[in-house]
Every structure is written in structure tokens, then in C-alpha cells.
């Protein structure tokens, strides 16, 4: 395929911007449009649950590129206008304001939408955290409150709990798993994280499902667990995961199944690609469909997508990477950590909360986790790469 004469990137966050930048870096000189649902210029999300929520950063600081850099990109940014439909054959995207944007190539980078409880929108004091506006609104509410319940024990919920505790709130974390990040880092290290939160003063009320919210006169008053117990709250954050933002693609004929399903080239159909949190593509080395919700994936995948849009034929086979900062713990993960993996500490000391652990399944390394040992953790990444290389690529 020859280079397209026009490219439309649907989504103006990290993955969308990185795709636009990669296209220009690779010499693409055709028309370039970036369509964003939010009113903001592209900004970075990882600081939202930490530096922005705590107030350590002004909200403006999360902008990914200064205006001057965006100008030299020579792209048209259309903001505050969500995509509402796609004509895949005609490669035309319809927007909420009524625009019909046609391009030779369309890159879907619409990210995620937080899951919510039924009826939560009607209750004041209940928040999600996905956007900059969400973070600013949550911070304002926290500053005027004393008791926060975080529903969700994943990365986002645990970061919010740590940050809010640092702001002086009384924080309770609720969720069905037994420890923070139990689903992401396995039970043993998650247990250490539970100890850290407890020591610092976060109350963990984990291992019980959450059935809903309680309210009075339009404002939330608590979180009800499956056990019947009610955790009182002035503010509630619902961090129970997010779904790929693909509802606008319903009826497009594209395959939607936990994301926009793509081949190993991140291509959903002729001239249509996906990048970032929304993309579920075939990882040839792992021999499976994969969808990653992390910051580095947005940038890394963008480079491959841009190359393929311009006529290249590159499979995307990354070593997944994510990190989380909670209190003074920086936890970094390369590869994948199955919950039933065998975990071996290979550097440092768990008791000192400074260590590197290898995760193995069936004797084979699948991932490495580091706790406050960034360099030593990265040095072990090669073990993950080697294990991936030993796998026979899927036909």
C-alpha cells in the first residue's frame, strides 16, 4: 500500500498524539487531522492520580507538548467533538457536532471509558478518574471532605488511596480481591502492598464485593458491600476498571471484542488501525490477542502503527511495561505476571522493600517485578525478552 494522502487520528491523547508525531517523523507530508473528545490539548494521564490529585502539579503541567511543538506538527486538531460513528468502507468518521471527516487512513485511539455503578451519575460526591477534568473535580471534592472510600483495588484505586491519604483524608479501599493489585502482581507481592497501605493508615476492606452506593438528598453517604456492611463516605471514587471506548464503532462492521480487534500489524480493516488502550491486536510472539492499558504502550504502539499506515508491514511484539507509584513504593513490571506464577526474589531484599522478583510459569520466565530498584529491574528485562524469543511465533 502506498502512503495515504490523508490520515485521521480519532483520539487526542498520548497514543493519538504519538501516532501523529511518528507519522511526521517518518516523513509523512499529507493531511493530518487529530480528533479529540475532550476540550484539552493532548495531555498525560499517569500524573492525574498522583501529582495533579495531590496538588503537587498545576493541571496545566500535564500537557504533553507545548503549543509551539504542536504547531510544527502541521496537524489540524479538532477538540471537544467526540466521534459518534464510522463508515468503515468510506473511511468517514461522524462526530457529535455533525462533522463528517473522511481520510485515506483512520487510526482509532479513543482509549477507555471508566466503568460505573448504575445510578452513580445521580449522586453528588461520586467520582471516576480518567480525564483531567475528573482529576480537578475529585481534588476539589477531596479538599472539602474528610472520608473517602475508593471502590477498586487495582492500580488506579490504590494510587488514589495513597494520594488521598497524603492529603489528610481518612481513606478506605474496598474491592473483591484480597489485596491491592492482587489481580496484577500476584498474591505475595500484593500482600506486601496491603501491608504498606495499612501501615500508612489506609483502611483496607477488601475481599468483599461492592453491591452499590448509599445516598441522602442527592449526595453519596457510603458504599454498600455484599456482606451488607456500609462503609460511610463523604466522597467515593469508583475505580473498578474501564472498557474500551468502542461504542461509537457499533454498526461499523469492525470486530469489537474487548477492544477494536486488529491483526498483528494493528490493522482492523483496510486503511483502519487502532493504537493505545482501545487496540486489541495479535501479539505474534505470545500467539494471542492482547490489549494493554499502559502509558508506554501508547507511545510504542504508535510508532508501529505510523509505520504500517505509511506502507510498512511490521508486527507489534512489545514486552509490556507498567509502573505504579504508591507512597514511597515504585513498582515496575516488565512482561506479564500470571497470578499463579512462581515468584523468586533475585536481587535486593523483600523485608527492606527494595527487591527484584522473577515470575515464572511452567519453569519459564514470564515477567519481572521491581520494588524500588528501577535499574536492577530493567537489567532483568532481558530475561523476559529471552523467554519470549524462545517461543515459536504463531503461524
Amino acid at each position, binding site marked *: 500500500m502506498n502512503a495515504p494522502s490523508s490520515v485521521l487520528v480519532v483520539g487526542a491523547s498520548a497514543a493519538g498524539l504519538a501516532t501523529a*508525531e511518528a507519522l511526521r517523523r517518518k516523513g509523512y507530508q499529507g493531511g493530518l487531522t487529530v480528533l479529540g473528545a475532550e476540550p484539552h490539548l493532548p495531555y498525560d494521564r499517569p500524573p492525574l492520580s498522583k501529582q495533579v490529585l495531590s496538588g503537587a502539579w498545576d493541571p496545566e503541567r500535564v500537557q504533553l*507538548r507545548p503549543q509551539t511543538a504542536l504547531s510544527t506538527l502541521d496537524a489540524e486538531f479538532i477538540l471537544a467533538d467526540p466521534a459518534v460513528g464510522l463508515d468503515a468502507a468510506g473511511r468517514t468518521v461522524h462526530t457529535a457536532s455533525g462533522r463528517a471527516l473522511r481520510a485515506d487512513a483512520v487510526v482509532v485511539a479513543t482509549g477507555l471509558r471508566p466503568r460505573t455503578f448504575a445510578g452513580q451519575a445521580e449522586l453528588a460526591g461520586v467520582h471516576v478518574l480518567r480525564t483531567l477534568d475528573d482529576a480537578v473535580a475529585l481534588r476539589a471534592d477531596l479538599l472539602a471532605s474528610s472520608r473517602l472510600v475508593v471502590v477498586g483495588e487495582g492500580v488506579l484505586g490504590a494510587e488514589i488511596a495513597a494520594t488521598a491519604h497524603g492529603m489528610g483524608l481518612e481513606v478506605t479501599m474496598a474491592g473483591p480481591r484480597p489485596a491491592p493489585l492482587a489481580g496484577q502482581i500476584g498474591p505475595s507481592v500484593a500482600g506486601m502492598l496491603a501491608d504498606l497501605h495499612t501501615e500508612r493508615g489506609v483502611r483496607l476492606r477488601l475481599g468483599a464485593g461492592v453491591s452499590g452506593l448509599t445516598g441522602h438528598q442527592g449526595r453519596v453517604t457510603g458504599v454498600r458491600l455484599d456482606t451488607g456492611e456500609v462503609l460511610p463516605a463523604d466522597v467515593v471514587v469508583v475505580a473498578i476498571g474501564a472498557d474500551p471506548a468502542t461504542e461509537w464503532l457499533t454498526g461499523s462492521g469492525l470486530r469489537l471484542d474487548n477492544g477494536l480487534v486488529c491483526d498483528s500489524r494493528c490493522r482492523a480493516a483496510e486503511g483502519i488501525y487502532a493504537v493505545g488502550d482501545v487496540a486489541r491486536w495479535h501479539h505474534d510472539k505470545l500467539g494471542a490477542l492482547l490489549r494493554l492499558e499502559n502509558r508506554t504502550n501508547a507511545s510504542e504502539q504508535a510508532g508501529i502503527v505510523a509505520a504500517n499506515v505509511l506502507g510498512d508491514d511490521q508486527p507489534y511484539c512489545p514486552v509490556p*511495561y507498567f509502573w505504579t507509584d504508591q507512597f514511597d513504593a515504585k513498582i*515496575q513490571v516488565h512482561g506479564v505476571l500470571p497470578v499463579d506464577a512462581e515468584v523468586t526474589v533475585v536481587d535486593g531484599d523483600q523485608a527492606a522493600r527494595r527487591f527484584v522478583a522473577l515470575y515464572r510459569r511452567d519453569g519459564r520466565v514470564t515477567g519481572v517485578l521491581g520494588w524500588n530498584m*528501577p535499574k536492577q529491574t*530493567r537489567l532483568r528485562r532481558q530475561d523476559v525478552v529471552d523467554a519470549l524469543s524462545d517461543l515459536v511465533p504463531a503461524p
Partner: protein
Amino acid sequence: MKVTIDQDKCVASGQCVVAAADVFDQRDEDGIVVLLNPDPPAEQAADVRHAAVVCPALAIHIED
């Protein structure tokens, strides 16, 4: 090519070292980026550009 780094923005992911180990390293104690060569040779330019792209903190700046 002139490379500069911002250690205050760095989040110690080490992705830059994975991309261009001749130009970047990390401090042993906290993993923050260390610039080994602010003026890398042309044959390393592509790797350094890749490092700047995959840095999750956008802490690497390049001037040609």
C-alpha cells in the same frame, strides 16, 4: 544531534536504556536517567530518537 535530559521529569522506567544503551544509563540507587553522551554519533541517532519517543515522561529532548 544534541541530547538533553530532564531528571526531574524522569520516572525511572529505563525505556531509554533499552532503546539506546550507549547514550543513556540509570542511577543505581533510584533508576533516574543518566546521560552518557550528549552528542551521540550519527549511527546511534535512530536509537536515541526511539528512546525519546518511548520515554513515558517525555524527559528526553533532541536538537538536530
